[in-house]
């Protein structure tokens, strides 16, 4: 308890608790993990809300992300400026969304952003190609990749505009029960 008081004020912790799916203890644990990433950078006192960002290189080296083929996208989506450098808030956000407690539509929303590589709010064929390549580590031939993309668009593109809107995506994903458990 004593530790918490020095890092966050009571109100801060409460706000974090209300804004994430974590308990106090988990928030503290996450904070220390965040702090461990860059001990020189991150102060141990957050009561004054210092403006600190941990660079992507360090975020991406976390065991949770290290092997994730989408780690870069994840960091970009959750970081404030889209460059992958994360403040503590972004960091907590990321873990909150990724946690089991987060509802599926929230996850679907962020997943959509993750898959939307060019940030144009649509998953287009190019985004799909990126996704497939990342997922299969380039084991598919170019022709297969394009076939896959075509099929995916075929399956999920509700309004047939050649790309997946968030709507299409949610429509598909929320009905796929195995999505992001």
């Amino acid at each position, binding site marked *: 308890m004593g530790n918490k008081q020095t890092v966050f004020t009571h109100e801060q912790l409460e*706000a974090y608790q209300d804004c994430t*799916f974590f308990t106090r203890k988990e928030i503290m644990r996450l904070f220390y993990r965040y702090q461990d990433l860059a001990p020189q950078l991150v102060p141990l006192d957050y009561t004054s809300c210092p403006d600190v960002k941990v660079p992507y290189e360090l975020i991406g080296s976390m065991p949770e992300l290290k092997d994730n083929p989408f780690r870069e996208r994840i960091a970009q989506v959750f970081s404030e400026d889209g460059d992958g450098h994360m403040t503590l808030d*972004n960091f907590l956000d990321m873990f909150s969304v*990724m946690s089991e407690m987060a509802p599926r539509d929230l996850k679907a929303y962020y997943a*959509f952003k993750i898959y939307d590589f060019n940030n144009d709010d649509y998953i287009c064929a190019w985004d799909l190609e990126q996704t497939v390549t990342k997922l299969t580590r380039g084991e598919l031939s170019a022709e297969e990749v394009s076939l896959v993309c075509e*099929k995916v668009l075929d399956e999920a593109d509700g309004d*047939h*505009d050649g790309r997946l809107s968030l709507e299409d995506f949610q429509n598909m994903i929320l009905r796929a029960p*195995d999505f992001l*458990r």
Partner: protein
Amino acid sequence: MSAYYRNNAYEEDPDAAYYSGSQNHPRGYLNTPNYPEPPDPLNNPDYPSTRRNPYSADSRTGPDYPGSLAEPDYPGSQRNPDYPGNRHNPYAADSRSSDYPASWAEPDYPGSPPNPYHSGPSREPDDSASQRNPAFAGSRSSGNYAGSRTNPDYLGSLGEPDYPGAQGNTTSPGPSAKSNQPGSRRNPESAGSRINPYIDALGQPDYPGAENQPDPPNFWGEPDYPDAEDYRHAPNLWGEPDYPGAENGSSENPEMNREMLSRTSSIRPSFHRGGDGPLGILGREDGDNPENIEMTSMEMANPYSHSVPGAPDRGYVNPAYVGDDGRGQADRDPPLSGHDWFKSPQGQKLIASLIPMTSRDRIKAIRNQPRTMDEKRNLRKIVEKEKSKQSRRILELTCCAQCLNSMSLTYRRVKNSLSELLHSINLWQKTFKVIRGKFGTSVLSYFNFLRWLLKFNVLAFVVTFSFIIIPQLTVAPKNHLQFTGLEFVTGAGYFSDTVMYYGFYTNSTIRHGDGGASYNMQLAYIFTIGAYLVTCFFSLLFSMARYFRNNFINPHVYSRGIAKLIFCWDFTVTHESAVKLKQKNLSTEIQENLSEIRQENVKLTFKQQLVHFSAHLAAWVVSTGVAIACCVAVYYLAENNSEFLANHRDPGAVLLLPFVVSCINLAVPRFYSMFRLVEHYEMPRHEVYSLLIRNIFLKISIIGILCYYWLNIVALAGEECWETLIGQEIYRLLLMDFVFSLADSLLGEFLRRIIGTRFIRSLGLQEFDIARNVLELIYAQTLVWIGTFFCPLLPFIQMITLFIMFYVKNISLMMNFQPPSKAWRASQMMTFFILLLFFPSLIGVLCTLAITIWRLKPSAGCGPFRGLPFFIQSIYSWIDTLSKRPSYLWVVWIYQNLIGSVHFFFILTLIVLIITYLYWQITEGRKIMIRLLHEQIINEGKDKMFLIEKLLKLQDTEKRANSTSFRLEGRDSEQSGSLRVREHIDARDLRFRRSVQEDNPKA
């Protein structure tokens, strides 16, 4: 100004014929009433209420500008005679000042040209002035807001060469505009002019001065409006003859900022959502007021965007798109507006909807916002502030409110720490994480299931322990049997005289001391077991229903599921090798899937089909035959068991039957899974399902045979205390099953790994067979449910075995297995498992126990029911006793009229059937609705594509035609440049064009 021109252009336009005032008026009129009323945006769903906010925001830029000014944005309102003129006045006042560029922008705005058209003349002179000014101001505004994004866009649109409508200016609008131009002139007109427009759609007659001034440009050149030149282009757009009505609105704004567009459209849905009740109003008003400058600048930046929504005047809004945009907006919003999003109307809506929630719901809602932490925190702060403000208002007494506040705060803190505590109690958190990281969610579902069952058994144990076992322990007679240790295996001997078995319980009423509370063991026994089973029934039913709802929403639509393969990457998998393996598996699966798709059209020949069919048939026949053979074997073994036991004095002999059963359970499923070599299912899922069905058939029929044996042979054999015998049998079965699983995990799987990695490399590591393992759990749980009646301690034993099993399986999993190669539909399988647990398993158990309780005679010499003809007799006699006590007559009444009454159940069944039927009908109706909506979405998509093509073509031709004339002005050419860059964005606003198209079939 531009608006005015537009109108005129229309008049001139032959197409405008259909604008013959009367037509337009009603339409505009209809729209208007909604506008002036902020509180119910719902009335006019088509109306993008959002606009108003931005507008008001804009208006606010001018410090003097009252929030109400937002109205002018709704040109329709001006037409509305009911509308107080005062609004116009403020406008007019502002109009003159060049500081209110935002408000000026309006005319461009709602694409409904008829509106401005009518409104122009109809308005008070001041008003019209304001309207006209806007056009100027708008252009100028860009000048004012040099830094703002708006400017380029705005200019761009104005300068767009695609809209050669300039003719409009020269023709009618010119003069009319002119007449409007001078503010002073307008004033005189104001009184009379207003009426005229209504009567006569043509605004010109109202402005006699128009003819005088044939040269509109001059008027533009007016010193007050230094940027007037720009405006000239704007009118062009408006005046374009090809776009009657709303088209102007939409076509003018090809360049609309995407963001702006999305903003406007997005707000619409939010309004619908939040606009409920007084709170909606509240929020909305808030929305207008706090609209701050940051927002303004953004919105102002693109005044045209507002105009786009004008299309809804036509009464057509594609709900799909609206929704789409709304979400899309949500996406875009955070980065766009940053910390200020909650000041937007949407944010205000959200806040307003959050306020009335309970704190728990509110926190949940805030957590679920797809926003950054900062925004969520701010949102929370604002909502809390609002809340406290409100509560203060309501309670008046501040101290009371404070007291309540602090109380709720303390309550929340206590709850938080409690949930934290509960969370830490939650078993195996870390292990679960590791398993998930290495094997993904599908394997985890097995462990989840295990933990779920464990909770079930803990509940059962707590219930039986506190209501049966503890009372019995207080009066337990001394146990004289000798304890050898072998009892652990056989469950007999020493244990048969303990609380473990039915036979040990007393049938008397337990009473400690004289006059102390009495405890009827008989009733306690039957009620506890009954309550436990009923609890199981309902909790299973509910969780099953929940799973069904979540997982079978729409199972058929994406059955092929390449999309799912791709998008259902398991983000929880973190282990490096696991990730690599998963990627590899995924690519194989995708390849398989693709080849499947490629070969889809290749039909099997009749011969091949025959071969397939016969293979399936043979497999089913063989598997059923094996299952039946096993059942028969178990039956004869059980029947002869007593003789066998009589011959063998060895106490271990009782283990023969459980051993055989466990062997069957171990061997036959593996035999079944070998069928896959013969059967070639097209879908791997079919294979899994058929395997599951065969296995469950085997296991359930074995249990069924055993139950038959127990109830019809053991119970009627006249043995002393047959209930205890059954309890022992079940105990041994469970124990043997547990031992076999242990051995299988520790030895079999280990050996398999050794073989796979050392000797036959091609085998490799095996995959965790989720289905088989889950079925084992279901089998054991079924036995436990049956056995709880005969052996109340059984849940406790099962608890221990499950606990051990978890660790054993976990270790074995980590050592001997590799992640599953198929993308498992874990959730659907889980639903299926729970269904299996419910349907054959629990229902079967309930039937068995019902037969036991209603039909069988309890043994005479032991147990709580000794001496009764039936178990259920205890209830009957209890009711009899109660009926003698007047204070308990209600219990008797309930029993006789509800539980014991056939008529009640008959009626109840009838009602339930009727409700079910109605719901079924509703579901059918919804299905049709869904299909229609789906078709509509598809149609919309086609329309969209068609319109995009059309638009591009149109733009091309127009650009070619007009580019030269517009090049003259540097700014304009710049704009058109930016236009081209932004062309791809245009698609977004196409839906508005579409509505235009609908309205303008002539075009």
